[in-house]
């Protein structure tokens, strides 16, 4: 059972598809897609890979074609307006015609690219980098790195051939002040797609030898103002922000500031201006030093002069003080001695008066006392005389009484009455005085004395 089969040649199929597609897609369309690779050929034509990604995965892919005359026209517009050629990896809005080639198959012939859309995309990238840096707290990080008093040892990120580098070096090395700078070049691409990774690599190398350097500079210039959107690249900006040395930029352009310039420690519009800034830092160190020489000279002279004057003044003051003191003392001595004199005289006079008074008082008192005493004495003597008389009278009476009594007791009176006294050896006879036989005794009577012997 063989059916009658219709067999087509490949060309017939391809032609048919081509015809169908051309009929179906007669007009041009605006398509948004990421240009993954440009694939520029030496012929000047480009065959870019166009993709659409979702969550990082390619969900649609198609080849594109940009003929040389279209590409030239598009690039011209880009560079003029955006200062950027078409960049790989960026999302573009393209005017395309769907094309089918018998040999290469289906592709999108790119006729034009919307500039405004790309501009927006660049803006968006810049904005995104800024907000990412902001959220990580990196916007001011490099600006807070301490800046050396003298930015003398400079790590230069630039390209050997860069006009910007030679301008920079010339200004530094030909300064009129004999300031010494040390520079060491870390070569890198300065624009286009390769710039960000190559600058980042050099930043890493510098970090390794940071103790040899004071600052990092990124200088560029003279290469036209094309391909600077790399300085909006987030990774590069992050690396600059995290650098432990201050990063200074002088990438020479007149368009909007890139993010790298915004977050660098300092941005100068051109490499020349950047070199001037470094020289200025030297001035700021040098001027106070020079001034201090002048100040030291002037102030020392002033201090010495002042000291001399002070001394002179002190001497004069001492002299005048001494004179014044002496004069003052002399006057006060005079006054004191006068006062002393006067007071002494007064005192002596007073004392004399007092003594006179006391003398008078004493004499009066003495007189009074004497009078009183003499009266008392005469009173007493009268009294004594009276008393004495009384006593004498009394005693006279007593004596008379006694004498009468005594007279009565006189042995003669007894003898008168006939009694006699017998004595032996001058003593009256008693038990103790007994005369023996023939002893001579004496017998006394009133008017006789008889001697007798004992029988």
């Amino acid at each position, binding site marked *: 059972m063989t059916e009658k089969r219709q067999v087509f040649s490949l060309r017939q199929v391809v032609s048919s598809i081509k015809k169908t597609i051309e009929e179906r897609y007669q007009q041009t369309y605006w398509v948004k897609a990421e240009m993954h690779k440009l694939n520029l050929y030496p012929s000047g034509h480009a065959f870019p890979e166009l993709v659409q990604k979702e969550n990082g995965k390619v969900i649609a892919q198609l080849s594109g074609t940009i003929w040389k005359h279209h590409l030239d026209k598009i690039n011209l517009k880009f560079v003029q307006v955006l200062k950027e050629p078409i960049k790989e990896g960026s999302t573009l809005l393209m005017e395309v015609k769907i094309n089918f080639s018998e040999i290469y198959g289906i592709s999108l012939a790119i006729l034009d690219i919307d500039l405004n859309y790309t501009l927006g995309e660049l803006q968006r990238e810049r904005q995104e980098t800024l907000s990412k840096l902001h959220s990580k707290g990196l916007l001011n990080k490099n600006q807070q790195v301490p800046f050396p008093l*003298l930015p003398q040892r400079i790590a230069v990120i630039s390209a050997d051939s860069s006009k910007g580098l030679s301008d920079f070096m010339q200004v530094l090395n030909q300064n009129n002040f*004999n300031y010494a700078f*040390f520079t*060491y070049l870390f070569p890198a691409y300065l624009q286009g797609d390769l710039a960000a990774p190559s600058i980042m690599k050099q930043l890493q190398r510098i970090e390794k030898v940071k103790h*040899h350097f004071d600052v990092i500079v990124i200088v560029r210039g003279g290469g036209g103002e094309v391909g600077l959107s790399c300085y909006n690249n987030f990774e590069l900006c992050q690396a600059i922000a995290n650098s432990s040395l201050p990063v200074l930029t002088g990438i020479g352009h007149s368009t909007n500031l890139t993010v790298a310039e915004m977050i660098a420690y300092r941005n100068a519009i051109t490499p020349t201006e950047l070199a001037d800034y470094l020289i200025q830092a030297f001035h700021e160190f040098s001027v106070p*030093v020079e001034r*201090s020489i002048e100040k*030291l000279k002037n102030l020392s002279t002033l201090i*010495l002069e002042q*000291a001399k004057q002070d001394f002179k003044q002190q001497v004069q003051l001492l002299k005048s003080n001494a004179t014044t003191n002496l004069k003052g003392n002399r006057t006060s001595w005079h006054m004191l001695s006068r006062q002393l004199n006067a007071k002494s005289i007064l005192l002596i006079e007073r004392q004399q008066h007092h003594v006179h008074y006391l003398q008078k008082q004493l004499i009066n008192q003495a007189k009074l006392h004497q009078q009183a005493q003499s009266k008392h004495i005469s009173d007493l003597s009268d009294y004594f005389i009276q008393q004495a008389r009384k006593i004498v009278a009394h005693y006279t009476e007593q004596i008379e009484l006694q004498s009468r009594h005594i007279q009565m007791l006189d042995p003669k009176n007894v003898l008168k009455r006939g009694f006699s006294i017998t004595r032996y050896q001058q003593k009256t006879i008693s038990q103790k005085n007994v005369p023996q036989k023939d002893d001579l005794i004496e017998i006394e009577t009133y008017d006789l004395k008889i001697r007798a012997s004992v029988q």
Partner: protein
Amino acid sequence: MKEEISYTAAYEELQRIVVDLEDGEISVDELSDKVKRASELIKICKKKLTSTEQDVNKILKDLEE
């Protein structure tokens, strides 16, 4: 003269001496010593401005490590 003093320290000390002089904090007795010290510091600062002692070989060696 202390050779090991850094230019930063020298600069700061110099400024301090000048300020002290301006404020009249330095007596005639100290003046001579202070001026002597200041001139040493000035020498250090001026030398730093006009000379560098960087060794490229050291940098290269450190880069290779």
